[in-house]
């Protein structure tokens, strides 16, 4: 069981100027979705943006998190 709040913390700690909105969609502690904004994404290809988020989560991405539906944004693209 992993908490959406913990995922949010890990991502926001690792990436600069970052806000992450994370939800535990199925309420099962395994299937999450996240929307992440960071200035570090500027000028970076989306594949690499997603890798950066995965790297922030480290081994949790391989062990505790079964699925993380991910959308990444630069500050200019952030819809909120």
């Amino acid at each position, binding site marked *: 069981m992993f908490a959406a709040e913990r995922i949010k913390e890990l991502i926001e700690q690792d990436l600069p100027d970052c806000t992450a909105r994370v939800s535990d969609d199925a309420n099962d502690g395994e299937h999450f979705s996240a929307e992440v904004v960071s200035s570090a994404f500027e000028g970076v290809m*989306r*594949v690499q943006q*997603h*890798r950066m988020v*995965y790297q922030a989560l480290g081994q949790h*991405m*391989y062990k505790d998190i079964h*699925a*993380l*539906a*991910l*959308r990444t944004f630069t500050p200019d693209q952030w819809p909120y």
Partner: protein
Amino acid sequence: MSDTQNQIKEMVETSPVFLFMKGTPDFPQCGFSNQAVSILNHLNVPFQSFNVLDNMDIRSGIKEYAQWPTIPQLYIKGTFVGGSDLMMEMYQSGELDKLLQFEES
């Protein structure tokens, strides 16, 4: 490079469009793999696939190969393009269709 890494390299480089997935295109065994197959079918793209549930070495090997922790994984001309989220984004923006245009040229 290990045998598994070489095997993966050969798979993705010998087919223009290659999908690592859970299950088969006819019987995907995960919602994300199902979404990936649906997108490729919708674009009418012929592709080769590999069922990672049949081979644990490949299943963990592709995570290392692409530095990407999840499955499915799509490769176009040997280059890792993304998982199901990026495929959906790129499908909706028309980018994926563009990347696959070489099929007809």
